[in-house]
């Protein structure tokens, strides 16, 4: 089922990328990034049946990085919300020239 897994992973990654581009809510964009990480995890697991168990070890690392990213990213979102009272990226344009 290697080909099917890789195709499913590509589709999920594309949906995640589309979500990042179309949404304005910072939290939803974060979740789209999580979906893209999940798609990559599926690739790792599918290929670990061919290349060896190292793929599953990398999935553990990816999950750790995702957890760290969620913690720091959500802290940043809370800090921005305290400052601007919104998480809509249209209104967060302090760095725009």
């Amino acid at each position: 089922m290697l080909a099917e897994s890789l195709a499913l992973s590509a589709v999920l990654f594309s949906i995640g990328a589309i979500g990042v581009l179309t949404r304005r809510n910072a939290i939803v964009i974060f979740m789209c990034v999580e979906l893209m990480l999940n798609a990559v995890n599926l690739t790792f697991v599918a290929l670990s049946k061919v290349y060896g168990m190292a793929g599953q070890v990398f999935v553990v690392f990816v999950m750790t990085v995702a957890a760290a990213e969620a913690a720091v990213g959500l802290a940043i979102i809370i800090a921005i919300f305290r400052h601007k009272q919104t998480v809509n990226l249209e209104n967060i344009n302090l760095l725009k020239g």
Partner: protein
Amino acid sequence: MPNFFYQVNFYLFGLIAIASSIAFVTRKSPVAAVLWLVNTMFCLAVLYVMLEAQFIGVIQVLVYAGAIMVVFLFVVMLLNLGQPTEIADIRGKWGKLAAAFLGLALLAQVAALSGKRMPEPFIPGTGYDAQAVRDLGAVGSVAQPLFNEYLLAFELTSILLLVAIVGAVVIGRRRQINAR
């Protein structure tokens, strides 16, 4: 060749995963989006188990669906974002067009690549040792490389988590300690 029941289940959960991720991207309410994403992750956990990665399937449910998504839900609750806002959350026509174009381009690249022959160094080897996996079990076969070949990376992960915890506390703190 896997049997018919296995294939039907594989396609079924794959389709549910795609459908719920599309629902996740298109929902306006953040709470609905989180719940659809949790559904996608459950389907992926099923697929991990079907791909004989039982341990990864378990930590997918425990860590991803159980911990990370609960943190997301918690933040949505904390910021009181449960209702869809008056301003439409989804970008306008041009944003949607650009996103559709990019999505189709990514899929077209995958479709073009799937017909190609892989170059010599990338042809799958025989690194998967079914006998060793059977001997060590689902957890042991992951732990064996994790604590031998990748021990340094594993230890560095702990530093990463420490940095993330300290960073989250510092960023999330309301004000400086010496401010009052």
